[in-house]
């Protein structure tokens, strides 16, 4: 049972690190702010949650702390991405080759109430 937990922990460590690496490479290589934000959202959801699953399997003391931190990361990361993307759109940063822009003209109509 111990060995099985360690095998799963090593698997989670490697998978989480590879997903974080993909996110950071996307953060460097992608063209504009919105796609870079898309890449870093993957880091804080998948990378940290897999590392925390490995920590729950490997350390005997930190089950509830790990579950609390997984819950908090899963709650916090999408709202951080949403607020930063909203701030970027309100600051008027351009998209690179957008297929379409559903918010065009909508922000001026709703101004004053926030997006």
């Amino acid at each position, binding site marked *: 049972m111990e060995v099985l937990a360690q095998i799963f922990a090593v698997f989670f460590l490697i998978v989480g690190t590879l997903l974080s690496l993909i996110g950071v490479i996307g*953060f460097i290589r992608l063209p504009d*702010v919105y796609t870079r*934000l898309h890449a870093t959202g993957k880091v804080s959801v998948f990378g*940290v949650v897999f590392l925390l699953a490995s920590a729950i399997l*490997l350390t005997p003391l930190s089950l509830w702390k790990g579950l609390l931190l997984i819950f908090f990361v899963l709650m*916090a990361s999408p709202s951080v991405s949403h607020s930063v993307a909203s701030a970027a759109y309100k600051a008027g940063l351009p998209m690179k080759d957008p297929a379409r822009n559903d918010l065009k003209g909508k922000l001026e109509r709703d101004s004053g109430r926030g997006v």
Partner: protein
Amino acid sequence: MTGFLDIVLWSVLGVHLLMALVAAWRTWRGDNSIERLIGLDLASTMTLAVLVLVSIIQQNSIFMDVAIALAALSYLSTVVLAKFVSDHKVF
């Protein structure tokens, strides 16, 4: 098995420190303020991952408490800074 686990843990820690360095570089030399904000958020996420890895290596769950506090503080600071950059006011 434990030798292999130690090797995996230390190499994963090194990769995460390298990614934190990349995020700090993007925060220093970003194209605009929103991109620097994304770099700051990524750096704090990497610090969270490093704290979790140190907690595994030391077999000591007090680093997990530090990680919870860091997650709460970085969440608040990123949301407030994003609102300040876009609206030029916080509340």
